[in-house]
């Protein structure tokens, strides 16, 4: 798997992401600078990592969405390439028009860092094939603006098309307001684009990939991508 991690000024989880990709695929991802206009040849996964691109000044993800490299990413996604955006990466993908909706401030207006449970809604996508449908995984969140919102029509389409892949839930998989940590519409933690090749999610699977660190629930996402790409090749 040849992956490319985008590096915008202010991004800060690119090293965490690189470690997770390296562990899953055995190959080192390329780091792509925001001012670049092309992705490395043969890239088969673009990752937009977490952080505070451009300080999240103006609006989270808004400036990064307009960086030179994003034109290349839009083209890559338009050609069906796989794009994964985590946390700030999700915000950037929404701002860049690759995903619908917007991430607003958490309902309780505070930054939240703790483990959450996510229900994997389906397993027949490149981003979830490492899991079973209905499986509950535990991964950390660390964000101040993760409250997903979209207009009613968009939300209906997302649900109708099965494009919600991850939802906040209890340890036993129950979805309710009590476990909706940031007030997101329909407890949405991660969605895919219409073609299903672009995933944005708030939680950090890349921080739960090593048994030695206590939890490997995030590994399935990366392992699934590796498997998908190996089959496609």
């Amino acid at each position, binding site marked *: 798997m040849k992956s490319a991690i985008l590096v915008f*000024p*202010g991004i*800060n*989880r690119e*090293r*965490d992401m690189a*470690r*997770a990709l390296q562990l899953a695929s055995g190959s080192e991802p390329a780091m792509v600078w925001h001012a670049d206009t092309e992705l490395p040849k043969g890239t088969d996964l673009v990752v937009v990592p977490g*952080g*505070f691109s*451009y*300080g*999240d*000044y103006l609006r989270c993800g808004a400036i990064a969405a307009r960086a030179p490299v994003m034109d290349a990413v839009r083209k890559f996604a338009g050609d069906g390439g796989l794009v994964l955006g985590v946390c700030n990466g999700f915000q950037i993908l929404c701002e860049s028009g690759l995903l619908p909706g917007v991430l607003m401030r958490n309902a309780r207006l*505070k*930054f*939240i*860092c*703790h483990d959450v449970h996510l229900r994997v809604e389906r397993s027949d996508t490149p981003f979830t094939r490492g899991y079973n449908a209905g499986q509950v995984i535990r991964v*950390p969140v*660390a964000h*101040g603006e993760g409250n997903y919102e979209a207009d009613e029509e968009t939300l209906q389409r997302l649900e109708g098309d099965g494009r919600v892949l991850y939802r906040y839930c209890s340890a036993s998989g129950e979805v309710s307001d009590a476990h909706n940590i940031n007030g997101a519409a329909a407890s949405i933690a991660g969605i895919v684009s219409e073609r299903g090749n672009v995933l944005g999610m708030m939680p*950090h699977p*890349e*921080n739960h*990939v*090593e048994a*030695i*660190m*206590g939890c490997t629930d995030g590994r399935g996402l990366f392992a699934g991508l590796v498997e998908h790409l190996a089959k496609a090749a």
Partner: protein
Amino acid sequence: MSSKPTPITPELVASHGLKPDEYQRILTLIGREPSITELGIFSAMWNEHCSYKSSRIHLKGLPTKAPWVLVGPGENAGVIDIGDNQAIVFKMESHNHPSFIEPYQGATTGVGGILRDVFTMGARPIACLNALSFGAPEHPKTRRLVSGVVAGVGGYGNSFGVPTVGGQVRFHTRYDGNILVNAMAVGLADADKIFLAAASGVGMPIVYLGSKTGRDGMGGATMASAEFDNDSDEKRPTVQVGDPFAEKLLLEACLEIMAADCVIAIQDMGAAGLTCSAVEMGAKGDLGVDLDLDAVPTREPGMTAYEMMLSESQERMLMVLKPEKEKQAEAIFKKWGLDFAIVGTTTPTLRFVVKHGGEVKADLPIKELGDEAPLYDRPHVESPKLPVIHARDIKPPIGVVEALEKLIGSPELCSRRWVWEQYDHVIGGNTVQRPGGDAAVVRIEDGPKGLALTVDVTPRYCEADPYEGGKQAVAEAYRNITAVGGKPLAITDNLNFGNPERPEIMGQLVGCLKGIAEACIALDSPIVSGNVSLYNETNGRGILPTPSIGGVGLLDDFTKSATLAFKAEGEAILLIGETRGWLGQSVYLRDICGREEGAPPPVNLEAEKRNGTVVRGMIHSGTATAVHDLSDGGLLVALAEMAIAGRIGASLDAGPEAIVPHAWWFGEDQARYIVTVPQDELLGVLTKLKAVGVPCLQIGTTAGHTLSIAGERAVDIKALEHAHESWFPNYMGGKA
């Protein structure tokens, strides 16, 4: 020297925080009246914050050396060697005064400043900690200050991208008018690539890097060296504004030009900004410095030399570059979008010369600016010894179980989850033990080494007996590191006290330092960096003496670290260390009996070392399944914390006859731990500990879902957890 010289009046001198005799010293030193810019430079260099003029002679007693210490106090941060060419760079610093005036920005710039201190030395920050002291919960300002400071600490660290893994939060009415915000940063560097402040070579370019200079933070260090009064809010313009994004860029750019071998010397612009950094680089390298302020990137036009020299705008650095690498360094900084300007050169003159608009605005002897700063041996009186309180003289107002239920959900002992969940504590993917345990454990790169990190002090002990309190702060850091399996290596201290011009305050400082020094020597933990914050007073009322101790320990194998959570039912619970039932200055005595009195528990450093060594051995051999240090709240509170964390209860024996129950369960005797071991290890452990003379007693067995003491009502773990977790969110939500 200036076209329209500002007259230097006694009022102007006083407004710069300089006393008449200090001004006289300036006149003698330079042989003429200073210009206004020069007066500003002297006030910046000679204030308490930068010159340590009241504390310096007493700091000399601290142990600062050990074979593993690479850089001790005096640089931006301390550095220790952990083997394999890896070095740990760390320091703690206060941002108390600004945080009281403007909590969010005060806290952010406190975190930003300490991170800069660490990466200036060539280290990538890998963890942050903090120690926060607030006024009484019922004080009208407290809630707003807690909310602002916590958001600020998080706001900066989260965006910069460093995990905030531990710390302390306390409430006490003595901080009502002076909160404390102490921030600690820890970084990882190559041991053979540590960067220092001393310039070398004549005619070398001095380069300004980072954000532009504005009028913010003007005179901040001078403010931090004065007491507060009712008009403190008017000092808001002296608080700087933090920009974590700029700092993240500065970090990456600095590490990149260091890796490219471009740097001779580097100094961050912290307190007293350009003045302090330029003087230190020159003075430490035995060189003069010529600064040309026309080249300094400014945020607004029309700034005077005086303003530029005293600005405390954040996210700025000064460097001496290798001349042949100038272009390469500039390209790296431009890539990161940061300002880069050559603002001066090193000279052989030993003069500090500042030019602006074609005029010399200051021309001062560079060494003397630091070396000739006033040094005071201020009068100090020892704090009066308080009587030892005998537990039998204290009548328990409520039963043991009721007291536990109250204490576990009290402001002093409740869970700090509300605070640390606002800090990103998992970024980096190396946080082995998250906040909430005795010490945080952070993996170093891909392991197997790990660091144990903690911040400790018990201010009420320091107030009651500065010497014992100073010892206790170091001993508790030692215990917390030990309890996770770390070997304590070194310490950074942040000494927060009141007005040193009062002999009783000075006595507290002297007493605490004596205790700290003694403990550091006995426990092999030298002090490698630190900071002194004095004048923490409002309207003549000082804070509790608060010498925060930041401890760093090493685990050779992070997978062999212990946590405090009970692991399984049926394991033996051992109390290690001697219990006499010391209630003086205990949380129980204060919060249950309403009495803040008595001598604090004495600290036996030999016992600390002996017991700590044994506990560490039990962790490394895999015998200990859970470990917890005993501190605030004593034995029963510690057991409840272990039960809550592991969601496993315990069946506990009644205490020994010789000790009254409330003293047994809530006394705060030092040098103690609780350790659990599987039943089949019990006999071996007891025999072994007896042989080495470490007191050890089985006090119960892990079992069920309640804490039940023989002869007392059993209490459900879930109920304790609820009480433990509720106070903070309820309070911040206005419900407590």
